[in-house]
């Protein structure tokens, strides 16, 4: 199988590391060779962050460049727009509708772009937009947006739900598992 590339993008602190671990775990269980590339350190402090997940028969480079991604999972609208250039023709975006103003917007040097979803669709991208933040709060914590989005993505991939549940068990600490299961279920229903 040709290597598939997924990008998980968002704002540092939104929980992309957990999302990439869940996804990587699911893919490994399916018998693929998997590489997940994370960013730690300074960019985690509220900056634009990206995690790459690649899988296939043989995966070499852990990074994804412009024009190479099959799917982008985004925790924040502006970040979906920023990284959309990395999608292949016919690629998909699953994004939260949450918006977080970056510092140039806060200081008034720039304004938060409008019409992002329409623009992305105009680029020929298959866009699924979900209010993951509200669903996460419904599940018990705003921090579970990442797992809500994993729920949404799970419907778009051909793997049994049991595999995802097993990955959740392996990646989430026991005391948060119930809340995260609920978040995942809300994502699947969205």
């Amino acid at each position, binding site marked *: 199988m040709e*290597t598939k590339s997924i990008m998980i993008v968002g*704002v*540092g*602190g939104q929980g992309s590391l957990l999302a990439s*671990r869940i996804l*990587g*775990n699911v893919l*490994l269980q399916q018998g693929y060779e*998997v*590489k*997940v*590339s*994370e*960013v*730690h*350190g*300074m*960019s*985690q*402090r*509220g*900056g*634009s962050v990206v995690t790459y997940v690649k899988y296939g028969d043989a*995966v*070499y*480079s*852990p*990074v994804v*460049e*412009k*024009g*190479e991604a099959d799917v982008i999972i985004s925790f924040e609208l*502006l*970040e979906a*727009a*920023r990284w*959309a*250039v990395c*999608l*292949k*023709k016919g690629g998909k975006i699953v994004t939260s509708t949450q918006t*977080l*103003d*970056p*510092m*140039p*917007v*806060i*200081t*008034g*040097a*720039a*304004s*938060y*772009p409008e019409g992002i979803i329409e*623009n992305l669709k*105009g*680029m*020929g991208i298959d866009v699924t937009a979900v209010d993951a933040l509200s669903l996460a709060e419904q599940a018990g914590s*705003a921090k579970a947006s990442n797992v809500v989005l994993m729920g949404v993505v799970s419907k778009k991939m051909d793997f049994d739900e049991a595999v995802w549940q097993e990955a959740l068990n392996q990646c989430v600490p026991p005391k948060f598992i119930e809340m995260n299961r609920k978040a995942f279920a809300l994502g699947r229903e969205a």
Partner: protein
Amino acid sequence: MKKLMLGNEAFARGLYEAGCRFASSYPGTPSTEITETIAKYDEVYAEWAPNEKVAVESALGASFAGARAFAAMKHVGLNVAADPLYTAAYTGVNGGLVIAVADDPGMHSSQNEQDSRHHAIASKVPMLEPSDSQECKEFAMLGYDISEDFDTPVLIRTATRVAHSQSAVEQLPRQERELKPYVKNPQKYVMVPANARGKHVIVEERTKKLITYAETAPINKVEDNGSEIGVITCGAAYQYAKEALGDKVNYLKLGMTNPLPNQLFLDFAAKCKTVYIIEELDGILEQHAKALGIECKGKEIFGCIGELNQVIIAEKLLGTAPEVTPYPEQLPIRPPVMCAGCPHRGVFYTLAKHKITVSGDIGCYTLGAAKPLESIDWTICMGSSISCLHGYNKILNEKSQNKTVAVIGDSTFIHTGLNSLVNVAYNASNSTVIILDNSITGMTGHQQNPTTGKNLKGDPAAAVDLEALCHAIGIKRVRVADPYHLAEMEQAITEELAVDEPSVIISRRPCALLKYVKHNPPLHVESDKCRSCKMCLKLGCPAISMKDGKACIDHTQCVGCGICGELCKFGAIAK
């Protein structure tokens, strides 16, 4: 069963399986998780050292005691540890000694882009270079064998995309090892000139033996795909090249990048019409190939700045590029910022308000240089804030000393800031130092340090008393201020700048991200009271923005620190 592991986690697994008993490190992105992971194995003693020099010396002592020992650091940390490294290269080891050094091409979280292979060459220490997680594990284990067989410390170089990428790793049981008895041997261990002269001869002989080893070492691999094009590569660059060029070329993949083999290079090149050298940062493989008379191309195509990737390689060598559709508008950038509730914010707000010249240091608080606070004037390396300020004030004296400060975090202060503060006291510069004590090593992801009262394993430990320490080295004026109370911080800064002697302000408030920190409920803006003066926006808090002409606080980010409320003249920010 194979498990997905970060390169760093796999590295720790390799150390564990190889019977490592001792690890001492200072955190540094992207090396930190090696030591965090090895600390989870009960068979291994693991600690955070105050700095990398202490870590390497401690690991060397453990090696003398007969244990397989380890130290980890980021590339710039190896500069701090260079002193023991260059002489440990002479003494050699008793138990094996492996030192991990993690480079950061692209500078995701670093102040420079140095190539650590230069240290291996200069110190005459062998260096291994894994390119994925399984290799991280295997090379860590092999490192110990090489260390003990050749009586040398071994450097293992990773880079961000190896250290922080996960791939599948096979886990095996630990091989327990007896301690090697320590035998007194001054000619080997006491590096006075008479002994060191003898050891230098042995080091040069060892390098020759290592070159012979490198000629046939299984980790220096040739992949012959019957092509006329040859690629010589190492580390992450090998993975990028494989993805871009697949089986269209032959590869010489070097798992050992110091010393480099000669005949292996020559034999590989002899079978190829064209040879490309694909390596990140400096042209070290290329210089070696060219010194052997091999005609090849490398840096003239790829340069020595930033990371490589498969698209760059395909574009340069094959002339192909993926089809790209850009987003139709220019988008605002999203640089990293101090978190909502970050205790450093109150300090930088006050410094910016008074237009103070700020000598910066390495940590989360380097973000005080970013807009809108733009408070920091310079940042060099760990501990440099205090010493740079000292020199600056010694030259400018009364022109600078009442309007300059140094800012340094608790962990960075202990790392190398302490020596600099001794210099301020001893040589009496009228300098004001602010220790940003947030009770943790922050930027690298919350590691304990000698000021926090806990050790790497989370157990209670002696805590440095910063006030007493500053007094003890001769600073008479030491005071503590709470950065959440702007008036208190402002008073401390203005008063200490006004006095004619060295002073230290300890800005004390734990990092807002620490799990034990209890947050207040999020604040909110009472829109009818907000006059849209944007005073609160001057803090650069990511939770505050303007919505429909009024200030607005994002409840998902706000931790209720309250400093925006202290600034608001109209009482519009409420609990």
